[in-house]
């Protein structure tokens, strides 16, 4: 293959990565933005979504498209419910004290991974793709499903944006983000908002996982990379800034696709991690984030 088509292929792969990453990272960013909680268990919620999708594909008879649709609805709900329960049972009792919540979510990560290992097993298992067609370009054929993933991710992100900007629930979330005491004084049940936001963040990770699992297979340790990359994206985009998260996801996803195709994937990750650590040191508010008051 010539360089041009090869680059196009790398960019398309990068676009798929970017789409899924944007979904996962927006969940992390939402939770940080509104609750000021750094959720280390976010990768575990992602993994849980993929693993549950496999269970659904086993239980629901009929064509793959049907079970996939069921998974796409059911998995985020289950994962969201687990997250809401964890929020109420643990994080709320810690008063969302930043360092304590990080330790607690590390604990949660271990518990969820162990649960997946015990009930799902150590093997990677495939989930069939709901649609099976190839788009024939002049130089190579490309999986239609992957392009569908990009479209679906864009739709979900659009929905999140609409909810945040144009619904009452979104207004309440933004009010809580800006000043939770005043919000409480206006009769907003902040505890419920927090549980809801934590569930929504986890649910977004689960949707991303359900979308990617036909391409990637479900595995109980698959949460590590999305967590690391989401951290990178959220930090570069500015902690808590949703628009910054989207831009950063595109940049990181595309460059990851290109560097992984032309160089070694490990090298790409080393460079990205170091870059991020340095960004945090030199510009703690991220590239797009507003300077903290």
């Amino acid at each position, binding site marked *: 293959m010539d360089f041009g088509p090869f680059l196009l292929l790398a960019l398309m792969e990068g676009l798929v990565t970017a789409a899924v990453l944007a979904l996962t990272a927006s969940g992390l960013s939402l939770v940080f933005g509104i609750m000021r909680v750094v959720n280390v268990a976010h990768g575990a919620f992602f993994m849980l979504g993929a693993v549950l999708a496999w269970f659904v594909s086993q239980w629901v008879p009929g064509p793959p498209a049907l079970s996939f649709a069921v998974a796409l609805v059911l998995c985020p709900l289950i994962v969201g419910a687990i997250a809401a329960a964890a929020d109420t049972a643990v994080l709320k009792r810690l008063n969302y004290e930043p*360092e*304590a919540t990080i330790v*607690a979510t590390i604990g949660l990560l271990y*518990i969820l991974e162990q*649960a997946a290992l015990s009930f799902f097993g150590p093997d990677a298992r495939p989930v069939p793709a709901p649609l099976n067609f190839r788009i024939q370009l002049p130089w190579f054929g490309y999986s239609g499903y992957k392009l569908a993933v990009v479209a679906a991710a864009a739709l979900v992100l659009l929905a999140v944006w609409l909810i945040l900007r144009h619904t009452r629930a979104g207004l309440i979330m933004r009010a809580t983000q800006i000043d939770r005491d005043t919000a409480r004084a206006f009769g907003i049940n902040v505890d419920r908002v927090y549980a809801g936001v934590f569930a929504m963040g986890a649910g977004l990770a689960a949707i991303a996982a359900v979308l990617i699992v036909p391409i990637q297979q479900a595995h109980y340790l698959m949460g590590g990379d999305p967590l*690391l990359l989401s951290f990178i994206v959220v930090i570069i985009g500015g902690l808590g800034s949703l628009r910054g998260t989207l831009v950063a996801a595109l940049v990181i996803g595309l460059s990851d696709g290109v560097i992984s195709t032309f160089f070694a994937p490990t090298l790409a990750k080393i460079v990205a*991690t170091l870059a991020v*650590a340095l960004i945090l040191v030199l510009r703690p508010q991220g590239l797009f984030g507003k300077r903290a008051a």
Partner: protein
Amino acid sequence: MKLDRALLLHLGLLAALLAFHFAAPAYHHTNIARIMVLAIYAMGYNIAFGYTGLLSLGHALFFGAGLYAAGLLAYHAEGTAGTGLIAGLAAGGLVAFALGLFALRTAGVAFMIVTLMFAQAGYLTVLYFGSYTRGDEGIVIPRAGRMLGSLDLSDDNTRYLVAFALFAAALLVNLWLARSPRGRIMVAMRENEERSRMLGYNPFTVKLAALTISGLYSGLSGAAYALMFGYAGASLASVQYSILPLLYVLLGGAGTVIGPFLGALLMFYLIDYASSVTDAHQFVTGAALVLLILFAPKGILGTLRERGLRWLP
């Protein structure tokens, strides 16, 4: 150092560990040797986290630096245990100092993420240079590399006694540090950084010094771990090994000298016991973290200190 009850308690612990050497069944003998080495690591972590209030999620970087300094020297350069321990100590301290120069410009959550990121980059670097480090598979250190003078560290008895000597030195230095004026300044940084700055102490240098000492401990522990158990693998530099000392310190009691050892001892046997009953030992780690942070954030000794044993250093 005046001979008071605090010093007596620590000397008593050391005497008990030495006596254990002659009385212990072989299985527990090896376990305790391993726990003592890990406790050095946890003590180092405690100096940064417990005393100075620096919650790092990247100490595996320092542990790994010591581990690979000793391991690679022995494997590729025919180094011996003596040079390995010194190299590990130096590597841990140097890496911690260099990281501190960057990471200490941040605080709180940003510090946690920065340390986590650097440690992850370190772990990936180990994998990237797989032709030297053999990555996940790890390197098995040849017997010649595990000789400390005429002492053979692969021998069970020697290993226990050398681990004991290192542990005793680390514990006494820790005790001295905790009771020295410098230790008090570190605690002052943890309690109220702005007020300490107003009193004329430079938070950056105090924290950098604490982190470097912490790195020296971690590096020494990593080198000792590699040399005594003959193995250096990437999993020992992974994020799990950043969480372990945090867990030990939280359980035993942050900001206490014996706490890290107590935490390492209890956690090691808890996981050991759990593995014999079920496969789900990760669950024990996770549940312990959540329960500790919820119900006993000060750990065992920290709680005891609040309930009357105010003299515990």
